[in-house]
């Protein structure tokens, strides 16, 4: 029956992209991967802009170097490093998943269901451990440099 009454739109939109669901660890990695990817991209643009000041002359370059010497940029640099580590390692996990290597084969669903999320979970835990090691080493290094 063609209805003349209106339907109420209920798409969650960008808010749903950020906040919807969140019933599993993979959901958080989904958000984190995009946030870190965009973060590195932002850094990349900034980096090109800052280094391009050299083309304007030595004084511009010196000025830019003084400005990025501010501690806030040190913290920023560490965040870029952290984003790169997390994004890169998680990216390897995603490649393995999306090529069908880490999701297992189709199987008869038997309750309580075990999905491909369980199959790839050890890879995710491994990624988190390796990332934590890198972040600890990197953090130590940043502290050494800033002091």
């Amino acid at each position, binding site marked *: 029956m063609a*209805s003349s*009454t*209106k*339907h*109420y*739109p*209920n*798409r*969650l*939109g*960008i*808010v*749903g*992209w*950020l906040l*919807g*669901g969140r*019933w*599993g660890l*993979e*959901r958080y990695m*989904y*958000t984190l*991967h*995009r946030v870190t990817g965009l973060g590195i991209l932002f850094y990349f643009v900034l980096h090109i802009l800052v280094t391009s000041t050299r083309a304007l002359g030595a004084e511009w370059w010196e000025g830019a170097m003084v400005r990025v010497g501010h501690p806030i940029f040190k913290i920023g640099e560490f965040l870029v490093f952290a984003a790169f580590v997390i994004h890169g390692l998680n990216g390897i996990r*995603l490649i393995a*998943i*999306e*090529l*069908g290597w880490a*999701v*297992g*084969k*189709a*199987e*008869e*669903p*038997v*309750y309580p*269901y075990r*999905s*491909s*999320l369980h199959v790839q979970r050890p890879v995710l835990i491994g990624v988190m451990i390796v990332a934590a090691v890198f972040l600890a080493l990197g953090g130590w290094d940043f502290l050494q440099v800033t002091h």
Partner: protein
Amino acid sequence: MPETSLSNRTIDVYIRRYNPERDARPRWQRFTLAVARGMTVLDGLHRIREEQDPTVVFRYSCRMSVCGSCAMLINGRPALACNTQIADVASERLTLAPLPNFDIIKDLVPDLAPLFQKHRAVQPYIQRADMEEVEKPTGEFYQSPKELERYLQFAYCIKCGSCMAGCPTLAADPEYPGPMPLAQAYRYSADSRDSGFDERKVQAGASHGVFRCHYAGECSNVCPKGVDPARALQLMKRELVLDYLRLRRKRCPASVLRVPGEARRNPDVPAPPPYTV
């Protein structure tokens, strides 16, 4: 899930109401419900309708997790109302809302028409050169148990739309087909009787296709049938990548299993009923 007490208990049920003729936007309405032992969310809704408010609208048919009509947000999570015991999910408060990412028709009833359109678009049926054999079968296509296993899990889908409501990509991108249709694209392409991959890959491999999936995994977390759409989508990506690299193994679709012509029926065994298709 923690088992809450099964003894009779009164809880608050908040139902998301929307009447297109009267309401500008959905609103919450509170009911109190005496939860009986073994009461499902669907039972609870019926009880509220019978005893408190006959205007509460919800959709159901089979009341046994087969038809896929009754999926809704139960305490914020997509699930089948008929397959969820109130005692398992609520000790004091139960919230019921229509599945998001679909328009609301009325109260708890989402408009699933876009889901069915997207499903149709991936050509969810066996395709092969000899379609006359499919339309007027002379026998069965051969399929080994191993070949069956490659897609059986995905064939359990009841098109309830829970996965579509949980998917963050679909929340932000209306053009994305979503987990259910894409899982079905894989289900048919993985079927040894089918040779329709080249048609389906146009839809599945499009720019708003399966590569929009970034494995948030929520579809597989909420699927009430254990279909694991996230797995199907990754396996579909694999096929598309292999196909792009010209490494995908082409197979001939299974042929009709010929019954031995010489065999004679044992007179003690009655003949089977006539074909119904």
